[in-house]
């Protein structure tokens, strides 16, 4: 009797605690998750940053790399001018596009295709562009369209190499700052690409995959097979090499899920622990590259300033989305007593908000909750975080070069205010330099706004919209924002698997990736050929908190002025209704 009573009390107590916690998720729990995440990121910051700097400055090749170069028949020691570097990058990406398009179009002939047929031409184009451009926008549903070989040898390989392309471009730009009076040589693309894959991404991915395996992410080559369930229905047991792909999907800020539900799927992200680990993987390289940058330019404080601006923007995004989801405004969250539509029980509101801010602040686009069902302000902030140009802290490599471009805008604006020739890290920002930066800043907003306008003006674009009114506009705006910024997440209500959206979003992804890359490399070449000027008393210090503030403000103003009109027709009016 006594034990029965104690069990009852215990059960009631457990239930009561659970009830209070699930309905009143304390702010301290959200803070606790963020604190654990920041601790882990801080622990690896200095060693990983130094390691990556060594990878890109060491003259020596590993034995396995030498063997690889012989097979590839490329010279890893030939210093390339920026234009050659760009040609190699474009050649590699063209080859990647062709191979991936071919694999998707010929899927019916591939081994381990699970009986799935070929992608249609528009769909194969969209997917090939999407994965080569580090976007991973997905119009298809993995478990119903993609076989194991296409995923493993096609899509997952691009998750590695497209991430390595982004890091290579960032490193080339940093070399531009390091060098003085050369003829515009910024490194060797083949060496940067190979070293990033072999020395950085592969070892981290292997260890990360084992951690994910232990949490329950699967790794096998079985087909999806039907069984009889507990209560007498049928369900398919899923198979696939998921762990090896899941880890690089996050680490390379790619975001393309093995399954349709992405990181909300229990076999991609089984527990709150795996969830935090995946957020760590998403953020670790983007938040560490500023350290690498600081070490390479010989002034760690410059890295701190870039990191400070990235971290501040990320933190504001996390705080706003967490607040929005916990407050749960809107008719549906109010009716249900909480914004749990499109969220998983094991994550709840806080861990979903943290993931949403991190996946949109980087160019990842993996989701552990359906962003279309986020509250109106929460969804608006995810969109705005992407619109910043993926700098909070941005994709692997692309976040660093994106923030460095804004740093140049910041010194230029500051220079105008005090009437001095602007310079950054000893490089003068003249007419040609600022022209390249201005084109960089304009490219993606142009693609987003023109794409959105076309889609809502054309019947072919209108048919895919699910929601009426402002949320319908948000769906389209989110799609083009995500594609042009190479994010890849979606307001999934939009039916995007149509020839119109597959083609238009494909163009946005391709142009949004490679036009900025070409401009960054051109700038890297100019900097490498410029003589570095010594700092004088009149030089604006770019390592102090004041500059971090200017940098953050420039990011917000540049984006704010561009996107506020369209945002006010979508998420803002929705938040007010």
């Amino acid at each position, binding site marked *: 009797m006594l034990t029965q009573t104690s069990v009852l009390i215990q059960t009631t107590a457990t239930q009561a605690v*659970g009830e209070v916690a699930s309905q009143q998720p304390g702010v301290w729990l959200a803070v606790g998750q963020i604190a654990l995440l920041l601790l882990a990121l801080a622990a690896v910051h200095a060693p990983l940053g130094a390691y990556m700097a060594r990878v890109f400055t060491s003259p020596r090749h590993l034995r396995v790399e030498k063997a690889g170069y012989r097979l590839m028949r490329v010279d890893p020691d030939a210093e390339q001018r920026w234009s050659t570097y760009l040609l*190699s990058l474009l050649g*590699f990406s063209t*080859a990647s596009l062709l191979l991936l398009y071919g694999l998707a179009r010929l899927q019916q002939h591939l081994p381990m295709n699970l009986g799935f047929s070929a992608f249609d031409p528009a769909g194969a184009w969209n997917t090939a562009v999407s994965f080569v451009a580090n976007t991973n926008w997905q119009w298809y549903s993995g478990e119903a369209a993609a076989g194991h070989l296409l995923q493993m040898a096609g899509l997952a390989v691009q998750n590695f190499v497209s991430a390595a392309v982004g890091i290579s471009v960032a490193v080339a730009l940093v070399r531009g700052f390091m060098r003085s009076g050369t003829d515009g040589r910024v490194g060797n693309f083949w060496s940067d690409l190979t070293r990033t894959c072999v020395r950085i991404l592969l070892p981290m991915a292997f260890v990360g995959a084992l951690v994910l395996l232990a949490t329950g992410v699967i790794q096998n080559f079985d087909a999806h097979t039907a069984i009889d369930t*507990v209560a007498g229905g049928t369900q398919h047991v899923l198979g696939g090499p998921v762990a090896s792909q899941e880890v690089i999907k996050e680490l390379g800020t790619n975001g393309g899920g093995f399954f349709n539900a992405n990181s909300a799927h229990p076999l991609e992200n089984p527990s709150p622990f795996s969830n935090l680990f995946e957020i760590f993987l998403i953020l670790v390289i983007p938040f560490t590259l500023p350290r690498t940058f600081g070490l390479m330019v010989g002034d760690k404080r410059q890295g701190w300033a870039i990191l400070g601006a990235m971290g501040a923007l990320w933190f504001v995004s996390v705080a706003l989305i967490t607040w929005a989801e916990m407050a749960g405004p809107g008719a549906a969250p109010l009716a249900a007593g909480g914004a749990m539509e499109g969220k998983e029980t094991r994550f709840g509101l806080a861990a979903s908000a943290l993931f949403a801010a991190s996946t949109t602040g980087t160019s990842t686009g993996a989701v552990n909750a359906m962003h279309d069902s986020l509250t109106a302000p929460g969804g608006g902030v995810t969109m705005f975080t992407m619109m910043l140009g993926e700098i909070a802290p941005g994709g692997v490599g692309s976040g660093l070069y994106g923030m460095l471009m804004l740093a140049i805008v910041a010194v230029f604006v500051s220079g105008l205010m005090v009437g001095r020739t602007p310079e950054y890290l000893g490089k003068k920002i003249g007419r040609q330099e600022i022209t390249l930066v201005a084109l960089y800043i304009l490219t993606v907003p142009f693609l987003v706004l023109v794409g959105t306008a076309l889609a809502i003006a054309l019947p072919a674009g209108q048919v895919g919209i699910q929601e009426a009114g402002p949320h319908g506009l948000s769906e389209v705006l989110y799609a083009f924002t995500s594609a042009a910024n190479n994010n890849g997440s979606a307001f*999934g209500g939009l039916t995007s698997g149509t020839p119109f959206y597959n083609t238009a979003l494909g163009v946005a992804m391709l142009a949004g990736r490679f036009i900025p890359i070409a401009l960054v490399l051109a700038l890297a070449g100019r900097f490498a050929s410029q003589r570095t000027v010594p700092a004088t008393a009149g030089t604006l210090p770019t390592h102090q908190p004041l500059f971090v503030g200017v940098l953050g403000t420039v990011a917000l103003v540049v984006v704010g002025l561009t996107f506020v009109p369209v945002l006010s027709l979508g998420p803002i009016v929705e938040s007010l209704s």
Partner: protein
Amino acid sequence: MPGTSSTLARPSASAGAASLFRQTLAGLRVLLVLTLLLGVAYPLAVWGVGQLALPWQANGSLVRSDGTHATSITDTGADGAPVVGSALIGQDFAAADDAERWFHGRPSAAGDGYDTLASAGTNLGPLNPELVAAIDERRAALAALNGVDPADLPADALTASASGLDPHVSPAYAALQVARVAEARGLDQAVVADLVAQHTAGRDLGVLGEPRVDVLELNLALENSEKMNP
């Protein structure tokens, strides 16, 4: 520095195209080598370690009808107990013929409900009238089914999950179902509540995620406890 710069200073269009073609061929060779390493050797290595060291997890956390673990769907237990699901994937207990005897998971947008070949959320927006109506309807239906006050239903009971395969419900939603399940099975409520407590997990590391109840494992335990104590 090796290489010449003058030839690349101002390439003509045709020279540029020829150069891009050469670089694409080089890119193809590089891609094929990297595919062997990253697309074949690496996933096979992860697979090897997984099958040796973590075979249960690597093969989908499969459970048999007697509650024991299996490493493949053909791996039946000593007494021939078949594999009936994955501990990580929810099943559609609400659609069963004897639905009142089972704990139910959350509403699901995966196919007709918990279809693993169609994982999905509804993607309905926060102001969508269709979604609001569905929530109100569920609130009334679940209150009637479980014999509770409609105001007591927690949000997870009324909303579809992101994956459509959510294996969990909140402890609050599980508690609401105890009386109904106990009555349908002719069990003492305390026994059922005890099983719920046994299958309730707290937050990972004390702060991560939310407390939760694994519905499939709870239902299996319920079924097996009944078999053991008929």
